[in-house]
């Protein structure tokens, strides 16, 4: 057992290394910069590449070029950088380019508060691509999660050939805490499935799946386009082909909801209230519920680690026996709508706060007790 004192950002970098990442490109931005700094310490000694672009757009482009050349890649930024990444995120989604993007969220809109946390980008990450294609977004609550979820993110990127987001937060990214990385059970690493066969059809894939992969630069010539393309990778205007491709891009994420569902729960017998939350807020929520339990007022918690695709089945299953559902968010209500959609028969109460300070256990206790 080796306990380290590290911030969430370093844990993301270490997770990336554990997942086999060999390329990072980024542009300085608070509060994500220390992911870049950590990758600079970790990657070159292992023969990896870690470079600074002239802006976020370029950095993201380098990452995508490297991904298409066969590398596992990570980039990291915050909200303003996600804005600049968005044109390439759309390209990565449409052309099924695997990569992991860490978004260490800060308080928006725009430049907002560079050194203050908020879960600002939860809907932006989901809908920040042209075409509205579903994406995968994971939400860590602490440094340990940053490590573990980054490895999951790399696995999902490989399996589903898409960009995967780790939606961290300044409060997680830049807070040092004790963590024993060796004690964390990591999932087996998913290896990229190479195309086997004579006639390379770059985007031919089984239902609900991503196509196998061939990197640029090997013997087989690879062609890639950001334009609407069919399974053969050529630009197409055929409505049926386009419809099938669009459907597959959607299905490969949504049809695998259960496999993509990561969560934590603390179920208390006799509780009639379930608090649903994600990110750093869940730590305060759990603390609040511990205190309430000591006072003889049991309240259960459900912490979502997968935000997109919405783990609807999980939410329905976990919420079914509770009279009261409370949703907490470090914003003014970006995700509560998804919970309400999943639980149309329930009344979902909401508390959100976006004022640069963490939601405290005391506030959460008041919210719960004000039923």
């Amino acid at each position, binding site marked *: 057992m080796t306990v380290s004192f590290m911030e969430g950002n370093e844990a993301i970098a270490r997770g990336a290394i554990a997942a086999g990442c060999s390329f990072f490109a980024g542009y300085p931005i608070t509060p994500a910069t220390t992911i870049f700094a950590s990758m600079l310490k970790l990657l070159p000694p292992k023969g990896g590449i870690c470079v600074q672009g002239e802006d976020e757009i370029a950095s993201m482009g380098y990452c995508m070029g490297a991904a298409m050349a066969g590398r596992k890649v990570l980039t990291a930024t915050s909200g303003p950088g996600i804005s600049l990444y968005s044109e*390439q995120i759309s390209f990565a989604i449409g052309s099924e380019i695997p990569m992991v993007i860490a978004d260490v969220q800060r308080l928006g809109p725009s430049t907002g508060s560079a050194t203050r946390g908020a879960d600002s980008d939860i809907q932006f990450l989901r809908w920040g691509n042209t075409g509205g294609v579903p994406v995968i977004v994971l939400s860590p609550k602490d440094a340990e999660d940053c490590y573990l979820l980054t490895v999951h993110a790399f696995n999902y990127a490989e399996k589903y050939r898409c960009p995967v987001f780790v939606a961290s937060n300044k409060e997680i990214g830049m807070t040092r805490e004790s963590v024993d990385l060796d004690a964390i059970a990591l999932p087996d690493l998913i290896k990229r499935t190479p195309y086997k066969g004579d006639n390379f059809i770059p985007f031919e894939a089984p239902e609900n799946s991503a196509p196998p992969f061939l990197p*640029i630069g090997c013997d087989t010539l690879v062609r890639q386009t950001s334009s609407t393309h069919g399974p053969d990778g050529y630009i197409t205007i055929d409505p049926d082909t386009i419809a099938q491709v669009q459907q597959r891009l959607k299905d490969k994420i949504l049809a695998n909801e259960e496999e993509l569902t990561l969560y934590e729960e603390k179920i208390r017998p006799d509780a009639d209230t379930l608090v649903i939350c994600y990110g750093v807020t869940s730590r305060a929520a759990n603390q609040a519920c511990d205190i309430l339990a000591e006072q003889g007022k049991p309240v259960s918690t459900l912490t979502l680690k997968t935000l997109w695709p919405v783990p609807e089945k999980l939410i329905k299953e976990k919420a079914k026996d509770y009279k009261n559902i409370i949703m907490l968010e470090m914003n003014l209500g970006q995700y509560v709508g998804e919970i309400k959609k999943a639980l149309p028969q329930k009344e979902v109460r909401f508390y959100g706060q976006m004022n640069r300070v963490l939601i405290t256990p005391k506030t959460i206790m008041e919210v719960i007790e004000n039923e």
Partner: protein
Amino acid sequence: MTKNAYDFKDYIRPRFFPHIWCAGCGHGIVLGSLLRAVHELELDKNEIVMTSGIGCSSRISGYVDFHSLHSIHGRAMTFATGVKLSKPKLKVMVPMGDGDALAIGGNHFIHAARRNIDLTAIVMNNKIYGMTGGQFSPLSGQGIKATTAPYLTIDNEFDVVELAKSAGASFVARSTTFHAVEATKLLKKAIMHKGFSVVEILSQCPTYYGRRNKLGDAVQMMEWYKTNTVKIGSKKLEKNPSLIQRGIFVEKKDAPEYCEEYNKIITAAMKGRG
């Protein structure tokens, strides 16, 4: 590949033809010059990556039978950089139009030049945005009629050669579609040059630039290239300094190349220095 007689069909994806370029467009001549360069260099098709953006010029990457990456507008240089850093042995070519190279993509262009990364930028300069219907470009210059300049342009133009030189490109050349054989020679040198190379090729757009500005048909526009350009240092310049020079403006063979320099960082880091 053994050196057979040149046959362009060996290097293209026939299903993409006929190409989308208008009758008389210069871009097909650029493609021809480029394919001849690849043939004469006896490069294997799978050691070449062509990365392009969006626009008339960028369609070139779909036509060639190399590794091809038809990416997004203005960002081709960034994807090319990622590919090159990942697999430095590949020959990475980045054909671009006016907008890809120097409007939306201008920042990436100058920074790639500054780093001297081993990419070959081919700027197909037709002074106009063709695909979107004849808007002026940062290479149009003043007094040009364009869809977005009905009262004539007031913007100054970039000089691609001067910009590339001052940004740090270690190989800079210019030719035209009239001088297709010369263009092939320059492209060959650019492709083999270790470092960031820029070849500007003046390429006519008779449909939008030529017609609107009453420059005649494609042949007349190409004749203009013949009469208004000279080889670097030609005596004709003394009489007429406004002539456009063609040839190699910069060729620094010993400038440190970015991927090689990065490799040194990795070597040092792996030894525990850094």
